[in-house]
């Protein structure tokens, strides 16, 4: 076979492999690290919050200021925009830090279980849509400690999904 034809065949094969690699839907998450799976691993630092103490959400009464019912309804409206149907059941949790100015930090861990709390992976599309919803939430509380100092806090949002519908948002 002439070299030119061989080269052309190799190029076509490489292109086909690249196509398969990037276009076949995958169930893996964005970043898999030793400590877990992450949607984003970027750590930003707001200079104004660098010296602020860090607390868990529950010790500073910092749940997102909407009821579970309101958040579930908003999440479902958000998911309907994509017009995709994910007939799955289980829990998807995103864990992250909100800084002292009320901005959610990009570094976000994702945990997924089925309804029996066994680890699982849902479709990448569903996870991305739920994460986009989390990113759309802009009313995180700012917390001031009794000494007047503002506080960064760890928090999470869990979506309980039943047949593709968000039926509850925790906490």
């Amino acid at each position: 076979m002439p070299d030119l034809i061989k080269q052309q065949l190799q190029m076509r094969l490489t292109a086909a492999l690249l196509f398969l690699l990037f276009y076949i839907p995958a169930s893996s998450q964005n970043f898999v690290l030793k400590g877990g799976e992450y949607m984003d691993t970027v750590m930003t630092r707001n200079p104004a919050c660098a010296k602020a103490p860090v607390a868990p959400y529950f010790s500073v009464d910092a749940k997102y200021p909407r009821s579970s019912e309101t958040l579930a309804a908003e999440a479902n409206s958000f998911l309907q925009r994509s017009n995709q149907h994910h007939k799955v059941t289980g829990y998807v949790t995103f864990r992250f830090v909100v800084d002292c100015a009320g901005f959610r930090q990009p570094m976000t861990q994702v945990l997924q279980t089925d309804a029996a709390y066994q680890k699982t992976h849902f479709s990448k599309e569903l996870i991305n849509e739920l994460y986009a919803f989390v990113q759309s939430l802009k009313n995180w509380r700012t917390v001031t400690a009794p000494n007047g100092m503002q506080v960064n806090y760890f928090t999470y949002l869990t979506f309980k999904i039943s047949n593709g519908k968000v039926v509850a948002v925790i906490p």
Partner: protein
Amino acid sequence: MGKWWPLFLSLLGVAQVGHAQQQPAQDQAALAKDCSNKVYQDSLVARYLDRGAHRVSYLSPQWAQYCDSLIAACPTIAYAYQQKAMPLIKCGDYAKAFPLIDQAVALDVNRWLAYRGFLKCIFTKDYAGALTDFRRVAQLKPQGREMDHTYAFFMGLCNLEMGKYKDAEADFAEDMRLQLGADGRGEIHFNTLLYAGVLALKKKQYPQAQTHLERCLKAYSQHPEANYYLALAYQAQGKPALARQHLAASQRALIGGYRLNEDNIYYANYPGQITEFEVIQAQKKLAD
């Protein structure tokens, strides 16, 4: 702040990897024998939990290490598994928390079955699963309580959230009967009255909802949810002035820091729990 993030995540790593002390086989056999001894178990709990884990934050990696040490020393102490699971639940890691809770239940069903039902009801909103646990524990301990409430109270919440209103009505009636006691003189918890009111509201039994919620407010006048749902009951009955009055009271209470008054509301919302946002939405709807 960056240095705290790995610490938070370390909760998971430590829980997964564990730092249990390895014991030679001979020692383990001796320990297993001693582990059936309640006095010996109590001494280990005092050593690893009372004077160990409970002296550090439960978000510290040391917490799980102390629990693992206790489990390694005596794998039949249910309390060790529950204590290890507790911070994981509060941080949303159900895959690691629930096997530990299941182990606690397997070792001491009388003590931990209702607790698991509570976690499913309030934390993970698994109402069917919670109902199964509470039905089972109600057979074992008909007079039992969990987090200051009867099992019937939580069964009522589960049925309410699953839309099984007739069952929820029976559960709240049983909850009230148990609270009143044999002499009928006991006090009904204000949140029993709240949820009985919410149930009546969902069934569009507005005068009944009004009665329960007004009784709730007699016990706890700043109750934000009772004021909110009473406003909805008044609104449904065509009484907008009273509805406005109670929405304003609900908003004032929330701004003033009043809450539904359950120990775990800081970790997870109770069913029907509201925020100021929902009150403002209701006020706007009333003004339209």
